[in-house]
């Protein structure tokens, strides 16, 4: 009897092991805790909510410049444009608001989401283009101003709301989270940098003239007006620029890898306030 019981236990253990391996052994809750502790231990004097302000939370001089710039925020034009676009009906008479809960107001903190139907991560940008296509309109370029304006307006309506990303009880959702984590920590480009090389290992340090932002809360400010661009940029534009800066060929806007890394980083930022649209040097 005891022997049978031992054999049965061994079989259960053997069956469970490949399952854990298939999931990449991710434990989002434990990783969230470790990620948060890493940053709060490294910057113990920084208020938790201040991490969303990126380089301005790391450098006093930059912070003063930012406060001065924000008296007349350079992203204001994008918010106005996005608001007008958002309210303008499509040719069929429907609007963006018809595609979102609460008519699209104050919902940015819930994106990205895992979509059970497609088995994919859906960012706010993708949801907006899905809305356009469902209503007979052409999708916008994920790296250009129209998408930046729409997401700037939607982020603005969510300002201060805590990021609230869920990973549903679905192995595909956990796999997407794990792929995002893998992308974040994988070195790439001729310079052999990962996202984490800058934003985990070196936040607050300079890379040439730039002060590196912490990874914690880095998605909360998206989209951003970036002085180096002289204009607005979407999350995809920022990720593509990061790739190029390490001499890696960027992926297409909102490619699976970019959506998954946004999912991972946004989950890590749960509870931190939306600060987008943001300004960056």
């Amino acid at each position, binding site marked *: 009897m005891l022997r049978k019981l031992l054999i049965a236990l061994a079989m259960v253990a053997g069956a469970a092991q490949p399952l854990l391996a298939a999931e990449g052994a991710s434990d989002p809750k434990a*990783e969230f805790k*470790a*990620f948060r502790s*890493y940053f709060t231990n490294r910057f113990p004097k920084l208020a938790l909510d201040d991490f969303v302000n990126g380089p301005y939370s790391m450098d006093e001089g930059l912070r003063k410049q930012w406060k001065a710039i924000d008296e007349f925020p350079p992203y204001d034009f994008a918010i106005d444009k996005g608001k007008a676009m958002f309210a303008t009906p499509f040719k069929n008479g429907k609007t963006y608001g018809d595609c979102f809960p609460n008519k699209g107001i104050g919902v940015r903190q819930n994106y990205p989401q895992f979509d059970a139907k497609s088995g994919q991560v859906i960012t706010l940008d993708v949801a907006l283009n899905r809305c356009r296509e469902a209503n007979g309109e052409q999708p916008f370029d994920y790296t250009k101003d129209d998408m930046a304006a729409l997401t700037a307006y939607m982020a603005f309506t969510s300002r201060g709301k805590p990021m609230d990303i869920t990973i549903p009880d679905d192995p595909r959702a956990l796999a997407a989270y794990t792929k995002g*984590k*893998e992308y974040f*920590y*994988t*070195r*790439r*480009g*001729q310079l*052999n940098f*990962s996202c*984490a090389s800058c934003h*985990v290992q070196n936040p607050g340090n300079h890379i040439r003239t730039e002060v590196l932002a912490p990874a914690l809360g880095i998605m909360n400010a998206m989209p951003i007006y970036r002085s180096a661009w002289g204009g607005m940029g979407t999350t995809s534009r920022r990720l593509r620029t990061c790739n*190029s800066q390490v*001499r*890696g*060929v960027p*992926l297409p806007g909102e490619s699976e*890898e970019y959506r998954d890394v946004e999912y991972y980083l946004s989950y890590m930022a749960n509870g931190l306030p939306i600060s987008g649209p943001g300004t960056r040097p």
Partner: protein
Amino acid sequence: MRTRTLIRLAVLASVAGFATAAVAASADDYKAAAAKADAAIKQAHALKNEWTTTGAAMKAAKAAADAGKFDEAVKHAQEAEALANGSIAQAKEQEKLWPDAVVR
């Protein structure tokens, strides 16, 4: 004495000429080098891990070949192949190494 010197010079000149002819690259040499580079680039593309410098080297190789400068073209194509192989090695190495960097 003078004849012997002339013979020596002639031999040296012919050896030098032969050597030059031996290293001068042809259009076929460029095509072969470009094909090897293209194969490596395709592999890097499949791994979604291309380097921007690889494309730049291939562009330079093509420009040199178009101008008939095949030595230069071969050199750039070989550089592109080496860069593409570097990115392939990086991708394969990182498949194993990335978990070591995760914050725990």
